[in-house]
C-alpha cells in the first residue's frame, strides 16, 4: 500500500456540489426541552462519578472480610500489589479520557496502544512481582470465587462510568469505552488485593484481572451505542 501518496493530488478531482455552501440552510431545530449540561456540569458529574465509584469500593471493602494475612503483610508488598492494578487503571483511564490536541481525545493509534498497554502492564508486573506459583488444590474454584467478587466490586464503577460518559465521545467511542472498562475493572482488581490472600500470579491474572478483559471487550462491543455523541 502506498503510504507516500500525495494528498495534494486530491485537488484534481472536481467538486460535484461546489455551490452547496451558498444555498440557504434550513431553520435550526428547536432546542431540547431539557437544557443540555454545560462543560462545567459535565466535569462535575464525572468527578462525582469517580468519587462515587471509590466510595462504592470502600463500602464493599468494609463489608467483606479482609484477607487473613493483611496485618502481617509487609507494607511494601501490599503497596506493590495495589499499585500494579492501579497503574493499569491510570493508564487506561488516561487513554480513554485524554482531551487530545484537538479536543476529540487521543489519536486512534495512541489510544489503542495505551488501552492495550494497560492490561499488558498488569500481566507483566504481576508475573514479575508475584511470588512463585504454588499448588492450589482447587485453583479454578478459588479463581471463580475471586472473579465473581471482582465482578461485584467492578459493577459500580462500570455502571457509573457508562452513565457519566454516555454519549460523551465524538470519535473512537468503542476504544474509549474499552479503556473505561479496563480502568474500572483494574480498580476492582486493586480492591481485591485487600480481600484475597492468594498471591499466585496465575490466580491474580485470571481471578482478579480476568474482568479487565471481559469489561474491555464489553466496552468495545457496546461502546459505540453507549458512548457515541
Amino acid at each position, binding site marked *: 500500500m502506498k503510504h507516500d501518496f500525495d*494528498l495534494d493530488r486530491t485537488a484534481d478531482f*472536481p467538486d460535484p*456540489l461546489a455551490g452547496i455552501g451558498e444555498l440557504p440552510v434550513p431553520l*435550526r431545530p428547536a432546542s431540547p426541552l431539557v437544557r443540555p449540561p454545560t462543560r462545567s456540569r459535565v466535569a462535575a458529574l464525572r468527578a462525582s462519578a469517580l468519587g462515587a465509584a471509590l466510595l462504592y469500593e470502600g463500602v464493599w471493602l468494609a463489608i467483606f472480610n479482609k484477607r487473613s494475612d493483611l496485618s502481617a503483610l509487609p507494607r511494601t508488598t501490599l503497596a506493590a500489589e495495589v499499585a500494579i492494578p492501579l497503574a493499569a487503571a491510570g493508564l487506561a483511564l488516561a487513554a480513554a479520557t485524554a482531551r487530545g490536541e484537538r479536543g*476529540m481525545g487521543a489519536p486512534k493509534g495512541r489510544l489503542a496502544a495505551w488501552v492495550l498497554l494497560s492490561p499488558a502492564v498488569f500481566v507483566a508486573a504481576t508475573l514479575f512481582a508475584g511470588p512463585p506459583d504454588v499448588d492450589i488444590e482447587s485453583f479454578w474454584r478459588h479463581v471463580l470465587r475471586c472473579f465473581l467478587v471482582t465482578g461485584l466490586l467492578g459493577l459500580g464503577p462500570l455502571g457509573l462510568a457508562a452513565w457519566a460518559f454516555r454519549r460523551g465521545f465524538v*470519535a473512537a467511542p468503542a476504544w474509549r469505552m474499552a479503556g473505561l472498562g479496563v480502568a474500572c475493572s483494574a480498580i476492582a482488581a486493586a480492591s481485591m488485593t485487600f480481600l484475597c490472600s492468594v498471591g499466585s500470579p496465575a490466580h491474580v491474572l485470571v481471578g482478579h484481572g480476568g474482568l479487565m478483559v471481559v469489561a474491555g471487550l464489553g466496552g468495545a462491543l457496546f461502546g459505540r451505542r453507549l458512548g457515541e455523541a
Partner: protein
Amino acid sequence: MHRYACGDDGALDEVYRLGAPRVRAFLARLCADLALADDLTQDAFLRIYRARGTFVAGASALPWMLAIARNAFRDHVRRERVRRNYQASSAEGQSRGQSILPDNSSDRAVIARQMLGVAQQALMKLPVRQREAFVLLRFEGLSLDEAAQVLGATQAAAKILVHRACVVIREALDREDKGRGVPLRTSGPIP
C-alpha cells in the same frame, strides 16, 4: 461553540449560522441527497446540543461538529441497512444530488456537469468510510490529522482510505475522458 459549551444559550444561533452550512455540505457530499442532508443536519445539531458539555475549551469547533455529523450519517446508514433498502435510496439520492448543481446551458458547462455526475456517481459507489475520508480531505479542507480524528482512525489508515478513493474516482473520470476523447479535469469552481 466555547461560549455555548459554557452555558451561554444565546450563542446557539451563531453556532448554527456558522456551522450548519459546513455540516450540511459535508452531509450532502456523503449522501448526495439535499433533503436527506437537511434531515441529518437537524439530527447532527440535536446531538451537538446534547454534547455541548463535552466540547473542550480551545479546540477547533469544525472537526468536532463534522465528527458528530459523521456519527449521525453512519447511524442513518445502519438504519437503512437494517431496512435493506439502502442501495435503493442511495441510487435515488444520486439523481437528486445532481439536480442541485448549478444549471448552465453552454457546451463546456454541459460537459462539466457530465464529469461532475461521473465524479458524484464514483463517490457514491465508494465504501462509506472511503467516501468520508475523501470528502473530509478534499472538500471540507481538513488536514490529515483532523480527518483521522474525525474518522476515529490513524493517520496512515486515513491516508490509505483517501488513496483508494482517489484510485476509484480517477479511473471513473479517465473512463469518461476516453469515452469523450477530450480530457476535462478541473479543480476550480465549475461554470
